[in-house]
């Protein structure tokens, strides 16, 4: 027990006190609401124990949006602090915690769950399957992610947040220089979430390889399925590296080992290498699915087949391959010598080639098309110029010699926000506007959506474009303040104003969700965008079993051709048979709880309680091993009833023939 009890809760900071109070009030509010509405059994049966990929996906997306809010508040706090020189809104320690949690949350607890959530909802539908390969494992993935995210998030009210940057470089992040338990949260919480992600990766590889519907060969898969497959392969290749690195970090921090601890003979550079061996593929893990999303949308809204499909697939595979070979470009300045830096300059710059191929293919998909400017397409269009800036500055950074002047400056910060925000956030918004009807049976409002779009995109550019100039003028990242003489003031202020606009844009998004849930038209076709892929051959919202009869695929853009040839859109009573579905299970939720508890004790270095709690993990594994429950059947008659209800509506292309 090496923590003082009076330091258990973080005290003495009015901002954190406000957060603590609001957390308590929110929790009380949720509990009261659930009790008042008598929704506890509903919550347990329909959500907490679900193994349905669509519901799991929605839970991922919900958590991702909440984490976006949290990470966004961190970002706004940083912008407020640096808006004027020598500001005293945050002190150095608080600022360090804020940028650390901002980085970790935005990458691991915002981008990842939003994308994995969208994959969960869409991939089985796109490949014509009834669920993922391992539904219960899928639920476990979610609950481990959720456990990691919650553990990481409570750090700022209990015990203190990590403060060594999202990269947590040693020796800084070691016990010698960061004795606080904040960095234990980093080691443990990310580890738990990482296990969940790794399981997701395996699950999606198996799902896509084994569960495609009849006739869907790999080269007839929609582009989003392709990028998900390749992303999952990178996950399986890269995440174990991080798992090992975090385990070594845990040994160093908790048990006094010296893998990275310099004073004990360890190697701090090893951490940097291992971290980026995972970290660089990680940015492709988040950006490749986004490329897939844009490919789907650009093709749907130009009413044209994706241009150069084969070269797109090769380009994605090429990016994935190169992503494992570029990690050193994150520390050209470590002094590895000109030969090493030359090689990694080459591999890094080569990424521009497949990325360029994708860019031109998207442009040529629009050429000769008929471009409809609905909100999903607007996000896709805004992505192109913004990502172009991110990409070209990326090539500039890839040049090792030039990087000596950009490294660790705001130029770099501007660059990666110009890749990650258009590449991931725009894609997630595009995907949510696009696939919202599949999840909830109604569209998001287009008018509010356009407000959201314009505010967010304009705010984004004002926030990050000035940072290029600041960086070239010598402003470094992660610095909580700067002097008035430095002359950085005006551009920092502009950036802060931009971030406020960005935040209003996000608020419009939240408002749009609220408005659409309340008022949006429920009476829409199951295919409101006149789309091309199989997920649109289901009802909106999608039936539990996805497809009453598994579709048969003959071409790429299968659903588009089904509509054109009027083939396979009808279903007859006799074609509908009993459907086998997996049963709900409480084990994944239980595992999430024990992982959280064990992780929490481990963070505080309370080993005996941690050991006792982790017995629960083994208990969960054992119970699952002897679980012979192999699902249930939905009877044909029930399926017929559901199908009859949604097909044959006005404007619906699907028909039910009695």
């Amino acid at each position: 027990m090496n923590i003082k009890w009076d330091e258990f809760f973080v005290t003495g900071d009015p901002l954190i006190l406000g957060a603590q109070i609001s957390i308590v009030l929110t929790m009380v509010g949720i509990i009261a609401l659930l009790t008042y509405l008598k929704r506890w059994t509903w919550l347990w049966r329909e959500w907490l124990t679900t193994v349905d990929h669509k519901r799991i996906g929605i839970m991922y997306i919900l958590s991702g949006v909440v984490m976006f809010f949290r990470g966004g508040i961190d970002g706004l706090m940083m912008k407020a602090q640096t808006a004027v020189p020598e500001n005293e809104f945050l002190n150095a320690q608080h600022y360090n915690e804020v940028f650390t949690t901002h980085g970790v949350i935005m990458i691991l607890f915002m981008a990842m769950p939003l994308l994995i959530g969208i994959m969960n909802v869409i991939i089985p539908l796109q490949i014509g399957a009834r669920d993922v390969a391992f539904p219960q494992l899928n639920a476990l993935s979610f609950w481990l992610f959720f456990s990691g995210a919650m553990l990481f998030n409570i750090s700022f009210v209990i015990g203190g947040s990590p403060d060594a940057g999202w990269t947590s470089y040693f020796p800084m992040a070691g016990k010698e220089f960061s004795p606080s338990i904040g960095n234990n949260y980093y080691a443990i919480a990310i580890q738990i979430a990482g296990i969940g992600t790794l399981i997701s990766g395996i699950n999606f590889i198996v799902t896509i390889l084994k569960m495609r519907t009849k006739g869907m060969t790999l080269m007839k898969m929609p582009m989003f399925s392709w990028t998900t497959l390749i992303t999952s392969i990178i996950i399986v290749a890269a995440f174990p590296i991080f798992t090992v690195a975090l385990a070594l970090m845990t040994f160093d921090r908790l048990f006094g080992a010296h893998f990275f601890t310099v004073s004990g003979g360890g190697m701090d550079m090893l951490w940097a290498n291992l971290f980026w061996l995972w970290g660089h593929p990680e940015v492709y893990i988040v950006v490749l699915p986004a490329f897939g999303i844009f490919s789907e949308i650009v093709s749907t809204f130009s009413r044209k087949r994706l241009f150069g499909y084969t070269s797109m697939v090769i380009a994605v595979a090429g990016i994935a391959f190169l992503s494992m070979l570029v990690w050193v470009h994150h520390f050209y300045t470590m002094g590895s010598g000109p030969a090493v830096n030359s090689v990694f300059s080459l591999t890094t710059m080569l990424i521009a080639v497949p990325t360029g191929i994708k860019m031109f293919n998207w442009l040529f998909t629009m050429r000769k098309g008929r471009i409809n400017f609905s909100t999903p397409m607007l996000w896709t269009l805004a992505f192109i110029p913004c990502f172009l800036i991110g990409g070209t500055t990326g090539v500039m950074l890839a040049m090792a010699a030039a990087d000596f002047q950009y490294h660790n400056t705001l130029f770099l910060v501007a660059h990666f926000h110009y890749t990650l925000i258009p590449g991931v956030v725009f894609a997630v918004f595009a995907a949510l506007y696009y696939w919202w009807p599949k999840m909830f049976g109604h569209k998001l409002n287009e008018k509010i959506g356009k407000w959201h779009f314009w505010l967010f995109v304009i705010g984004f550019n004002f926030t990050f474009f000035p940072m290029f100039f600041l960086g070239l003028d010598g402003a470094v990242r992660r610095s909580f303040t700067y002097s008035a003489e430095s002359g950085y003031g005006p551009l920092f202020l502009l950036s802060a104003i931009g971030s406020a606009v960005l935040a209003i844009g996000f608020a419009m998004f939240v408002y749009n969700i609220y408005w659409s849930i309340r008022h949006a038209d429920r009476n829409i076709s199951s295919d409101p965008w006149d789309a091309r892929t199989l997920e649109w051959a289901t009802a909106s919202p999608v039936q539990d079993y996805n497809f009453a009869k598994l579709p048969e695929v003959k071409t790429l853009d299968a659903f588009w051709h089904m509509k054109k040839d009027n083939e396979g859109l009808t279903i007859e009573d006799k074609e509908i048979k009993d459907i086998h579905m997996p049963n709900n299970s409480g084990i994944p939720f239980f595992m999430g709880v024990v992982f959280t508890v064990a992780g929490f004790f481990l963070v505080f270095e309370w080993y005996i309680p941690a050991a006792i709690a982790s017995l629960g993990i083994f208990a969960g594994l054992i119970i699952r091993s002897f679980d012979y429950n192999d699902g249930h059947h939905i009877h044909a008659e029930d399926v017929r009833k559901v199908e009859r209800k949604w097909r044959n509506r006005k404007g619906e292309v699907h028909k039910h023939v009695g």
Partner: protein
Amino acid sequence: MKMKKLSIYLFAIISIFLLTGCETNMVVFNPQGPNAETILGLINWSLLWMAIVIIVVMGMFITFIWKYRERPDNMDYEPPEEHGNTKWEIIWTAIPFLIVIALLIPNIQALYALEEVPEGYEDKEPITIHVTGADWKWIFSYPEEDIETVNYVNIPEDTPIIFKMTSAGTMQSFWVPALGGQKYAMAKMETELILTADNPGSYMGKNSNFNGPGYAEMEFEVLAQTQAEYDEWVEEVKERAPELTEEKYIELLKPTHLGRLTFNGTHLQWINHADPNSNSYTNPQLYYREHGYKGKTFDEEDNYKNADEMIENEHGGDSHHEH
């Protein structure tokens, strides 16, 4: 209408901001030495190519979305099913590839050039200065002159300076943007950076690698002087500055902010932190001395909440007792 007015205002404000941004002459675009000049050449070369790429792609982008937008009069237009076009796909694979080569070759040349004494300065005898980064100050040791400075370094102009860098604890990045690119300073490791100042002047140097609560203020000044001024400064230090003692040096290494300090003698006589076997005086071992054995958690007194006091009070670390 309202929107239009608003956007005009917005545009005006932006232009003012951006113009002021450009007028300040960004430091990277104002090189004061051969190292920074080499890098600037490379940056300008890459900016040229990237500008071409942006113009081409944006030209296509704007043309396509304008020309092929959905209009009330083309609603019955059904786009053709285009699979791709091998010729174009080869073109837009090959051209970026050639651009990569055009950028890579000068980049490799620059990488090798930056490791050497710059061209035209070979006949000048270079000066070696040891740099030790510590929490949160820079310590400069002149082995030839046998003097040590903290948070400032005086150098003669037109003379290549070989900075041999290491750290007494956390990882830092040594950066003088006006003179050249940066490199890390790491404990038990030595990195080398050759910088030369073409003109006398004061240049801001800083740590760009985050290393804790005192990071933002970890700056130093490089003062380039004429040879005569420099010699005079060395003379003066030799006469006036106090002798550096081992106790004083240990005091320097504590996590503190210090102003400028000057000493006779260098700490290299006791320790070179670049030596992989150096095992005394490094900052973590200050903790070890207080705490029994290596690796044991540094609980209680060293909790991060004390960090603020340690910055203000350089005796903050002395209150530990044996466990």
